[in-house]
């Protein structure tokens, strides 16, 4: 278990160019704090690589490699195979990929790497769209959200599909460790990184990372928005280990989704019936959660 006082004062991610209040900044900073100096990082094209590798700046003070958009899984495999062939045992291999780089274009490489059972940590920070290229929808963009490729208007509600469930896709691989997390729940997230570090084989952590720029909320609300999404049940904190799912936080009653949605520009156009549809979908998802994982 991570204790605040035992955390290092060293910053392994510093001076980066992420927007003020970026949830992804919390993710990168705390993950590397837990993993420490003996870490190498894979970064596909995404906000994370864009804001940490603006030549000649390199804001991770541990080695990082930027690669093609779909390649995170493949590069993690390569890094872990390279270390193995050199006989290096005490170095952590971690990748930070966006939701697009994970659920869309990178899903094949990730699936292959997990299937091979290579030793790495894959962190998908989920800002629910292609952010660094200007807010295009991804397979993780939630129903009703306006993006530049799913603009809302008289003929469209915005994004038409509900979010893909990467956590369950990873469970279907029978991966040694998978978890969901949220940048607002820092202790929970850091404990999951610590667990992933000690797992032999692949570990996958899907962390919700609110994005003030793409979601449309003031930068000081990043942590608050992250709490709201968990409290209203549109996101949940869980982990999968030894064939079982454990829910880490189950709100007694789920708060109305309306407050969460209306706090963000991307959902401002939604009407009461749209909000009702989102709430119904949430309820059906929670029914499955209770049915499958909480009995």
């Amino acid at each position: 278990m991570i204790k605040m006082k035992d955390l290092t004062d060293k910053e392994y991610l510093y001076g980066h160019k992420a927007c003020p209040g970026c949830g992804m900044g919390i993710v990168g900073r705390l993950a590397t704090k837990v993993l420490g100096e003996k870490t190498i990082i894979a970064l596909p094209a995404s906000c994370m690589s864009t804001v940490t590798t603006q030549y000649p700046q390199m804001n991770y003070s541990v080695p990082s490699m930027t690669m093609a958009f779909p390649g995170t899984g493949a590069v993690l495999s390569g890094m872990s195979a390279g270390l193995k062939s050199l006989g290096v045992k005490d170095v952590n291999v971690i990748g930070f990929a966006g939701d697009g780089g994970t659920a869309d274009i990178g899903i094949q490489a990730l699936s292959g790497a997990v299937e091979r059972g290579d030793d790495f940590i894959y962190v998908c920070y989920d800002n629910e769209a292609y952010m660094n290229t200007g807010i295009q929808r991804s397979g993780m963009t939630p129903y009703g959200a306006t993006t530049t490729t799913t603009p809302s208007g008289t003929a469209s509600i915005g994004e038409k599909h509900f979010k893909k469930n990467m956590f369950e896709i990873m469970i279907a691989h029978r991966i040694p460790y998978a978890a969901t997390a949220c940048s607002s729940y820092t202790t929970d997230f850091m404990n999951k990184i610590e667990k992933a570090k000690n797992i032999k084989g692949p570990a996958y952590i899907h962390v919700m990372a609110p994005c003030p720029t793409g979601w449309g909320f003031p930068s000081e609300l990043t942590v608050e928005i992250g709490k709201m999404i968990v409290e209203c049940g549109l996101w949940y904190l869980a982990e999968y280990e030894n064939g079982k799912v454990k829910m880490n936080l189950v709100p007694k009653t789920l708060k109305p989704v309306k407050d969460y949605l209306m706090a963000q520009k991307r959902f401002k156009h939604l009407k009461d019936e749209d909000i009702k549809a989102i709430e119904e979908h949430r309820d059906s998802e929670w029914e499955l959660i209770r049915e499958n994982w909480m009995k």
Partner: protein
Amino acid sequence: MSKPQIVKYKMPESQKDMPLGPSSEAGVIIEPNAGWRVMKPIIDNSKCVMCLKCWILCPDGVIDREKGTLEIDYNFCKGCGICSYECPQKAITMVKEGKQYD
């Protein structure tokens, strides 16, 4: 404050100075982010109880706790306001940049 520091970096002047391939040393910071800031967080240490909520939540890691009281690295604070919003003691106030304060 033991936060990473800005290093003096000599930009390549000719092709000979360019690194081999698109690579650079890890941990190279050549400029501050202070110019992004519109609002500036000011910590009132007499109200702070060192719960470290702001320290852990800062996306840029600019809050320093090493002296036993909190200090902000204004070279890299972007003024997002998370620290001020999240502080349970209301010990951090956001003030507009560009004026003089004592």
